[in-house]
């Protein structure tokens, strides 16, 4: 089990997924999250990786999920909506802060991109 004292308590992909859930807001179910990662992340990720990560985040208690009925085209299978729980949010914040501190004072040519 990872210690929460680690400098980056979340993996890169976990951060991406949590951010995507936040970006998707109320409509954060699998396809929408995938779409967020795809659009904002600028590249497509393997579907399998996303679902496995969602399962893992759920098991660790970083996200919560609820199911609701979806449109008929789903063949009667419900949509599962995710929200980020306070623990998850705190870890995300810590990770981003750590990254931010590491970045401070460096230009990295970021302004041009």
């Amino acid at each position, binding site marked *: 089990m990872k210690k929460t004292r680690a400098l980056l308590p979340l993996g890169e992909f976990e951060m991406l997924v949590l951010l995507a859930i936040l970006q998707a807001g109320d409509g954060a179910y*699998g396809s929408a999250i995938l779409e967020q990662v795809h659009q904002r992340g600028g590249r497509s990720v393997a579907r399998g990786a996303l679902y496995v990560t969602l399962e893992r985040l759920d098991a660790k208690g970083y996200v919560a999920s609820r199911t609701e009925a979806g449109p008929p085209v789903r063949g009667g299978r419900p949509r599962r909506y995710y929200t980020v729980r306070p623990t998850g949010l705190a870890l995300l914040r810590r990770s981003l802060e750590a990254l931010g501190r590491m970045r401070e004072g460096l230009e990295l040519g970021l302004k041009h991109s």
Partner: protein
Amino acid sequence: MTRPPRAAAWLLERVLPRGARDAAIGDLNEEFAAVVRDAGSAPARRWYWIQTFSLIRAFAAEGRPRPAALGEISVRPGGDTMTQDLRYALRALRRSPAFTLIAIAVLAIGIGATSAIFSFVDGVLLRPLPYREPDRIVFLWERPPGGSRNVISTLNYLDWQQQNQVFESISAGTSASMTMAANGEVSQVRASRVSAGYFRVYGVATTLGRAFSPGEDQPGKNNVVVLSYRFWQQRFGGDPGIVGRTIALDREPCVVIGVLPAGSPFDRGSSQLWRPLAFGPGELTRDYHWLRAIARLKPGITLEAARANMDAIAARISRDYPASNKDWGITIDRLPDVLVDPTLRRSLEVLLAGVGLLLVLGCTNLANLALARGTAREREVVVCAALGASRGRIVRQFLTESVLLSAAGGALGLASGYMMMRGLQLLLPSYYLPREAVIAMDWRAFAFAAGLAIGTGLLFGLAPAFHAGRVDLAGSMRASSRTATADRSRRRLRDVLVIAEIAVSCLLLAGATLLVRSFLQMRGVDVARDPDRLLTAGLLTPDSRFSHPDQARAFFRTVLERVQGIPGVTAAALTAGLPLEGWPDGMPLRFAESNARGGAGFKSISPSYFNTLGLPLLRGRGLTDQDRKGTTPVIVVNDAFAKRYFENQDPLGKHVLIQEIVPGQRRLGPEIPWQIVGVVANERTNGLSPQGSRGVYSSIEQTPMYGLSLVLRASGDPSFLVAPLKAAIHEIDPEQPVTDIRTVAAIKDEFVAPDRLRTWLFGVFSAIALLLAAVGIYGVMSYSVAQRTHEIGVRAALGASRGRIVGLVIRHAALLTGVGLAIGMAAAIAATRWMTALLFGVQPRDPVSLGVAALLLATVSLVAAYVPARRAARIDPIHALRVD
């Protein structure tokens, strides 16, 4: 609406963990709908599959335990042992790539060949017939006195049709070549004329348009035609507007009313199109037999009931028309019972048995290899056992390896089997398999190959597995394991395996030599003198072409004259039937002098026929140009005829009463008293056997025919005659088709093609078997020499000569070979009787064939043993004794 691929959904349903499953599949379905909208259904399905694999891979990786080290096999109890087994097996196989490759190759060839042959057995013998309730379809024949099956005369058929109470529908038919004019192109097509009920009997509906309606087989209403799907595709490019179009068949306009379904038996049969059979006034006869009939039994009617009903009808006809029908009956066969010719059935059975034996042999060999490998892996097993792996666990580990190998072999085998199947299909003449046979590699062949793969894996894996399980811990832990008891029993087991290999090879080799001998006998039969110098061609003519027999006489006289004038032609003849194509007519006959009855084949020929073919005249004279219309009717009989009817008498000068064959009509004329003027050697008409079938020859001047074939003898290469021949015929009549141009040698080649293929296949099987047996002997002997290095060194040190040491090894091999041969020969003698139907001119226990097989096998195995024996003889005693 396009649905997601069912198989992918099925997979996901089973692979994904419960919690994630519904949402993930639902998302996928929802996105799928969008992809279908944007990209179309085929790309969307592909997309769905890619997503499916992404999910499966990710979840599988998530659930996988950390890599297991060798010792963990038993250290970690429980857990996913199946995965562990597999991963460990993979690693073990990767460590010995040579063994792995050989094993997979042997299995791929074995499983491939077996699946390929199985696909034929399945298609021809096992698969249900592609008709609705095929058990209700029957073939009907007339049964002549003393015979069993004969084609049917028109009036008899019509009586059957009207009087029977047992058939739902009944149909008569006959096949013919027709000229077709369509799309401004004239060509010959293969057609059938059938009663309107024909397709109802088979229970086949058209895919376009309709089949014949009742009543369309009446004169004046029959200008309609149904096409096979394949013909529609090939000749009309699948034109969707074909129904309603008019094409000319034998110059009569016919409306296309329907197209049969794709892939139906009618695509594989010889006919390309079907017209209703309407009987003309000249065809309403009772003594001219020319029709074939099929019928569909009413529901609930048994074959016995149908036979009783038809027997009663036959008795009535026989009573009412004794002149033509005295003692004639009716034979009924169920379609499934007669579809497959017994020789074909036996061929397939023998081939499947052969290829199955080969697979067993391959497995034995692999077991042998695996045993040898087991020795090398003893230490590894010991370590596992020492770390606490149970015996069952080790056995299972070994079995996993072999099943893994055979799974790979099976997958490759399916691919190689498919290629072999396609290859065989190309090599087989099209008429060889019944048109109902669908030859394909589908789930049935797949299931068969998968079953074989698992079975073979267990078969060749069991022996090494149990040996691994019985490893002697203490013995093997010692530095030298040479004396371990497991070793001795393993050696004994390998001896037994080699004996089995030799026995099985012996069986296969005996079968192959028999078939080869039989085929050589067939090849040695000369159908005619120098058959590759004899060019033949068909001159098809529709019945309507000549209005009077004299026109035909004149036409064919001109043809013969012109053709004889072609430079390079040394002889030419016309005939109603070529060699190996049967007798054109079978005629009942009566002897004028004794009033005895009989029957014989009847063939019209030009007088030059015997000379052109090189058939020697045995007695009397041949036919001459003086035997023409108006002179005494004469025939030449063949040797079989003379022997059958004139055993101790002189046939010359005797008279045979045979009814006149009227050209272009379905009737017979009055009896003609034919005088026998000569006896000719038996022509190979129906088969290669020299006994021949009895027949008589009449001159085409006295028995004119409308459709004849040409035979030319060339002074050199007959292929140079093709163009001049066509030119000569077209000079006489530009519209006369010249078909099937080939040599008599080619006719025979085609006749024996199935035999050649079968012989080749069996020959290849047995060559592989021989190779495998040699490898087996070589392996066992090398191993035994390596194991006995120490002992041989001692013997050499004590003064044993090289010859003695070679003898030591060879004796061992000779013992194994001898025992194997004895078992194999006993099996061969018992089993080859089963092949009798496939043999020509060779007895199933032919001592030459069996002797050749035994000698070949003995030689090969001794040569294989000699190499390790030489190695043994070169062992340097000093070196051998210094090792440990």
